[in-house]
């Protein structure tokens, strides 16, 4: 990566870190939300569905500003986190939070579709064989939805790599702290003579996205064959 200007290198590494943690940390929550939406009947299900999808339809700047209000140093969630020394405002963790929230609807949709495709009669059969509900989930549902989880995770990762509006609004554009690939491209385009560096980052973005896609196709195909029972 020596051919990249140091600022661009920094932005790429930070973006990978932010997207990785945003995806990993939100995955369990995503599976839980998808399972709840696909299989449970409870009051407030429609509300949960709306809440999960909100970042998809709100302008990203609005989501970023709401995050700033909530998780800023004086915000209702931000202040206690700040007191514990784990505040997220203007830090890379804040960028990860913004990316995770923006990517969450995509992740949940992919996982939910795969859960809905699981034959509930297989889960019933597992129950009659002595598996309690959590065990049915762990030994039947989860293995069968692995392709969906993988798809959801890759989608979320790709979305996180490209997140711009909410990130720049919430945690700004501080090189080495919160400057991710898209915000770095934006910054390079703001200074005279930055086009070359911006173009390189655009190339890197395309390469990362293509690699993620190819990886998911490969893994997804293998998992789907396993799940189909052949």
């Amino acid at each position, binding site marked *: 990566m020596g051919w990249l200007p140091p600022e661009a290198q920094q932005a790429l590494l930070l973006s990978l870190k932010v997207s990785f943690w945003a995806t990993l940390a939100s995955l369990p929550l995503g599976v839980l939300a998808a399972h709840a939406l696909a299989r449970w009947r409870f009051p407030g299900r429609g509300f949960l569905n709306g809440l999960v999808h909100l970042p998809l339809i709100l302008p990203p700047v609005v989501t970023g500003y709401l995050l700033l209000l909530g998780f800023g140093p004086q915000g209702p969630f931000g202040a206690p986190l700040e007191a514990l020394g784990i505040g997220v405002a203007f830090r890379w963790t804040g960028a990860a939070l913004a990316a995770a929230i923006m990517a969450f609807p995509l992740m949940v949709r992919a996982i939910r579709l795969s859960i809905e495709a699981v034959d509930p009669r297989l889960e*019933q*059969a597992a*129950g*009659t*064989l*002595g*598996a309690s509900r959590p065990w049915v989930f762990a030994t039947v549902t989860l293995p069968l939805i692995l392709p969906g989880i993988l798809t959801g995770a890759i989608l979320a990762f790709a979305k996180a790599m490209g997140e711009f509006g909410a990130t720049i609004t919430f945690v700004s554009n501080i090189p080495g702290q919160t400057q991710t690939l898209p915000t770095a491209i934006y910054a390079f385009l703001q200074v005279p003579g930055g086009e070359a560096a911006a173009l390189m980052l655009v190339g890197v973005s395309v390469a990362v996205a293509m690699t993620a896609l190819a990886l998911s196709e490969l893994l997804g195909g293998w998992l789907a064959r396993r799940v189909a*029972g*052949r």
Partner: protein
Amino acid sequence: MSLDVTLGHRLGAFALEAAFVAPPGVTVLFGRSGSGKTSVVDAVAGLLRPQRGRIAVDGEVLCDTDRGIWTPPHRRRLGVVFQDGRLFPHLTVRGNLDYGRRFSGRGRDRALEARIVEMLGIGALLDRRPGGLSGGERARVGIGRALLARPRLIVADEPLAALDQSRKAEIMPYFERLRDEVAVPILYVSHDAAEVARLATTVVALEGGRVLAAGPAAEILADPNVVPAGIRAAGAVLEVRVARHHPDGLSELDAGGVALFVPRVERPAGATIRVRIPAQEVILSLEPPRGLSAVNVLPGRIEAIRAGEGPGVLVSLATPGGTVLARITRRSAERMGLAVGGSAHAVVKSVAIAREDLGGR
């Protein structure tokens, strides 16, 4: 062991009001589709929560709506065999077979595993995945999976309905071995009279959500008032002894002193088997027939004559081998002057007794 079931459940226009006791052996729930068979087994398996009712296995109450008792399916220790097998596609056959044992808290019992794998003939499939198995193979693995969970009761919901005739013939003997060799009681759902005749120790006939009749198989199947699958499927079941095999491809059976000739039975002389004689295939004659190609003649006394749907009547005839049902037209019955208490001869062609109607005890 015994299973004690009382159920009351309303689903739209359908009302289930059923009560029966299943003694050891194979209890077949018999009836047309829509008669409530599946609701009953679902309630026993814990997949349907009845509005009212009580279900007890061996005195242990699994469900009692009056006392608020409801045991979830995973604590019932029942082995459920499903119509479509419902094998886990992500596990190998071995993984499927071992699935129930993992939750029973027991160690592996290799002797039992080997015995069941051998009995079902699935040793060569262990490392395969369900996606590549045939319907018959899937059905056998499904049976093995239920058995290896060491259930106190096997519940089978039309396990053969999805299979064609020859696959059925392939699986049926495994259920017979289950009944005869493994001391696990079985609750078996079927709408196929031939299947019932071969397997049932006890028959519970359901119609419109109610128990029409319940009792020992031979008694219920010979009762002209119980023909839930329609009068066409009626047929009596006789328990007979294999007398000898003849070189012309026929086997001679002893039905209470009367010789019956049927296509070759793959059982040794001396074995007791069941024969189902479809009512459609029986001709009645007042005199002992002469000059007829049919070789099986059972003399008897008329016990009942029941008018059925259409122009037919169902005559039940008490013969030395047991009750035989004959389906003839009302016109013939009148012309012959058949009456309860009178005597008649039942005439059956050998080839009318189909292979699937011949089974072990």
